[in-house]
């Protein structure tokens, strides 16, 4: 019984610290899709969202708003992604309206949202599918 308890204790501690260190990668790997955003954005704006490593954003001629979504470990699953409005100074537009977003932004975001309206607020948490 004592040996079994010691084994359980070791497994428990390894699990806790393992998930603590690797949880972010696990969450990013199994990252659920965004199903709900700010209502105005989904009503008036055409929102595109996708996980990395998709780098090309197609949104036509209108200049969009881009929100960087960062996985915030201090929040619950319901409010996992922290939205931050960002500028895209190095965005390159081609003739077809494709925008190649700065690789720096992509590298430092877990997900980005592109929309035509400014409905989303800076610093809001985005709900994700349960």
């Amino acid at each position: 019984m004592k040996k079994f308890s010691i084994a359980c204790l070791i497994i428990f501690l390894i699990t806790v610290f393992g998930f603590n260190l690797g949880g972010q990668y696990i969450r990013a790997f199994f990252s659920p899709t965004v199903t709900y955003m700010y209502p105005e954005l989904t009503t008036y704006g055409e929102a595109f969202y996708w996980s990395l490593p998709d780098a090309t954003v197609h949104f036509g001629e209108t200049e969009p708003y881009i929100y960087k979504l960062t996985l915030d470990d201090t929040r619950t699953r319901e409010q996992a992604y922290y939205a931050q409005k960002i500028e895209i100074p190095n965005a390159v537009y081609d003739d077809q309206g494709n925008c190649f977003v700065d690789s720096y932004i992509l590298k430092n975001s877990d997900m980005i949202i592109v929309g035509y309206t400014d409905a989303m607020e800076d610093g809001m948490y985005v709900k994700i599918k349960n």
Partner: protein
Amino acid sequence: MKLSSIVISIFIIIFACIFMAPVVITIFLSCTDGLSPYVDFFVWEPTYLYALTNSIIVSFTTSFATILISILAAYVFAKVKFRGCSILFFLYIMILIMPFQVTLLPQYIVSKKIGIYDTLGALILPGIFSPFAPILLTQMMKFVPNEVIEAARLETNSTLCIITQIIVPFIRPGIICTWILSFSETWNAVAEPRFLMESLGKMPLMYHLGNLTEVGFFEFAAVVISMLLPYLLFTIFKSEIVENIGMAKLK
């Protein structure tokens, strides 16, 4: 079997069921939805996982450091005669008797002054110098025969050697028991984090469990996980704890 022993057995079983019911219900409800509440705890609700890690770090660090310091303090109280020893010990007991809320405000001020406010150090540092462990160990060390220490003195002059090689093995069950009690005290602390910390990400698990507003499968799973570590430690050191309680009764 006599009728009286049957009646007593029935009473004992009823009382055992009453005491065990909350734990059994909690475990049962945490498993009703399968393992998903546990997956949520470890993967999708990082706040709770981080809180559990904070609890483990704070509890282990505090209890180990408490034992290290308390053994030395207890040796001085039990085996070294110096002027003011009994007054100092009396002051220790006074602090032990005092409700811990009394010392929370000074702890808050001191932690702000020395810059450990809102860090895990704010929970660890005051916990290390809790008066409970030295008092308990002092009482145990008083039963170590002076002749044994004097005999050891013939071999070595190092007090540290005498403590580690003679006294610690002698009162080992007592040290383990004190360590478990100190661990449980830190593990279950709710008021201290509330006073000494601000950031939610640095709070221990018990703080979050104390602030639960919803009662669902996930919350029950969190409660079960919070019980697991103290339970495992108790199971591992059960014989030492029981032995120590037995020793205390004999004395």
